[in-house]
């Protein structure tokens, strides 16, 4: 057979043997394949190498664990179809991970400059289920994950970590079309880790994140007890929707993704990474009114379409136990500044923020006399402009990287590429990925020790 054999390469976890399923293909024989383009994936599990080690391995709380394969060079692909075992054998671990396993060949379409072009690039993806009941076998990072991540690195490299805490404007850019970081993996050859935490049921606005950073275990116990007491005594009988919403809510509130450390498996074994080097936020997540618990003081921001998932008892709890608090632009600014300062002090992490689209082709205002001052309290595009300017004010005194969605949408054409102001086209997502990767490269350059040793948190 012609072409370069594509082999797995090494992957190891200290004290554990890696067992893999049959492959599931993302590309077919005969198709052209770009360098770095994912072509296949498999599920993996970690099995104790001896009786002395337990089952609490490096990624024990992440029940979804998969490896994605991509060639280092572009060319015409030929796969070995027998690598796909089919049925449950493409889901369950059936073979030991062997570095010399060949999954196919590639005929390069240009001169090869890679030192070892046949060794596949590997991205490991891991999902921490919102509930262990979310046991779904379909596709990449399947089911309902409260946190998912993907990482890749070569020997001697330490990934820089970006935590995505945004809304839909961040989700598509970071997760990509198949919700598994495939586009980021292809776009970035430097060692990286992307972590994604969804915006449900609690949207990640600054007050919520600040609460998470400072919440003590006793405070979490108090808020959990408050919710339990309400549901236990509510005049409105809790439904299944209420219990599921309550469970998801508590699951989110007990976590502090901004302070998480991360274990990774790699070609050289298990590694431990510190908290995220940067967090990606959405300015669109900042509401002008937020719920604050009347007695415990913590904040909740649940977007309207997520509130609809709650049953009547949770709706009653939100109405009675919380009060809405207005947030002026000055308050939003203060919350951002406090978040940036707190994060810098506690983990050294930096903030990247997606600003807001501030024009719309769906309105035709020719005269602003009809709108009361301050117009930013009524007109969404004026509010967006003021908030975007606020970010620049913050960036004058603090480390804040603004990803300029507004300018990019204007450049590409918002009607085609950002029609509702939040959900981008594929082309716009590609452009935003490039900007985010550039920002991460700048962070890597600013902290050169990250690449070789990582930070000691």
């Amino acid at each position: 057979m012609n072409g370069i054999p594509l082999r797995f390469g090494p992957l190891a976890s200290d004290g554990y043997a890696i067992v893999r399923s049959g492959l599931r293909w993302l590309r077919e024989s005969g198709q052209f394949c770009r360098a770095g383009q994912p072509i296949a994936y498999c599920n993996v599990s970690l099995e104790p190498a001896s009786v002395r080690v337990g089952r609490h391995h490096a990624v024990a709380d992440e029940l979804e664990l998969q490896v994605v394969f991509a060639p280092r060079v572009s060319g015409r692909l030929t796969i070995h179809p027998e690598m796909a075992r089919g049925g449950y054998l493409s889901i369950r671990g059936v073979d030991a991970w062997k570095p010399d396993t060949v999954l196919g060949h590639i005929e390069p379409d240009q001169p090869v400059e890679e030192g070892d072009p046949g060794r596949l690039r590997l991205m490991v993806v891991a999902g921490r289920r919102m509930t262990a009941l979310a046991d779904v076998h379909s596709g990449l990072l399947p089911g309902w994950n409260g946190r998912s991540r993907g990482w890749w690195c070569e020997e001697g490299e330490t990934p820089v970590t970006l935590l995505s805490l945004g809304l839909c404007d961040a989700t598509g850019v970071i997760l990509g079309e198949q919700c598994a970081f495939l586009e980021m993996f292809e776009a970035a050859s430097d060692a990286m880790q992307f972590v994604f935490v969804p915006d449900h049921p609690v949207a990640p606005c600054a007050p919520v994140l600040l609460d998470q950073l400072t919440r003590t275990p006793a405070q979490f116990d108090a808020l959990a007890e408050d919710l339990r007491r309400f549901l236990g005594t509510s005049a409105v009988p809790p439904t299944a929707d209420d219990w599921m919403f309550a469970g998801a809510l508590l699951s989110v509130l007990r976590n502090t993704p901004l302070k998480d450390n991360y274990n990774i498996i790699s070609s050289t074994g298990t590694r431990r990474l510190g908290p995220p080097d940067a967090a990606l936020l959405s300015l669109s997540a900042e509401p002008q009114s937020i719920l604050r618990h009347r007695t415990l003081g913590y904040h909740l921001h649940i977007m309207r379409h997520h509130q609809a998932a709650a049953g009547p008892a949770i709706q009653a709890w939100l109405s009675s136990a919380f009060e809405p608090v207005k947030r002026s632009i000055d308050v939003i600014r203060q919350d951002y500044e406090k978040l940036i300062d707190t994060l810098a002090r506690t983990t050294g992490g930096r903030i990247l923020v997606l600003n807001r689209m501030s024009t719309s082709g769906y309105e035709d205002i020719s005269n602003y006399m009809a709108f009361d001052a301050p117009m930013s309290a009524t007109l969404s595009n004026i509010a967006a402009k003021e908030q975007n300017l606020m970010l620049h004010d913050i960036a004058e005194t603090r480390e804040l990287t603004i990803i300029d969605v507004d300018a990019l949408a204007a450049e590409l054409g918002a009607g085609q590429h950002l029609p509702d102001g939040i959900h981008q086209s594929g082309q716009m997502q590609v452009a935003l990925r490039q900007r985010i990767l550039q920002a991460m490269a700048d962070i890597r350059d600013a902290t050169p020790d990250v690449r070789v040793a990582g930070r000691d948190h």
Partner: protein
Amino acid sequence: MLYEFKLPVIVPQMSGATVECLYSARDDSLRLGSKLMDLSVDLSSAFAQECPPVSFYRLVLREAVYLRQIDVQPGQHCALGDRIALFSTDPSEPIDQETTRQVRYTIAGIIHHDGMWTGSHS
């Protein structure tokens, strides 16, 4: 002359809109720049996704008229092209005649507020 307001296309993919609140009542004399109503457009029926893009809009009049008939209530969903209101330039003009045209209006994207149907009833 009689003018009407039929629900126009605000967002290309919309099939209708929900009346969020009304600012005017029948027989009101409305000046240029008067607020008529707020509407919401929910594209979740157009796009099957977990994050329905819901946006809010305010209709403001661009000419002075009398509101002679308004056929909607807050919370009511209207289809594209439904006649929502009828206006006249003379307060006593009979309204059982053909309308001349669509009333002149401005559409502005607005922020959700406490006076809206959405959030207080749904």
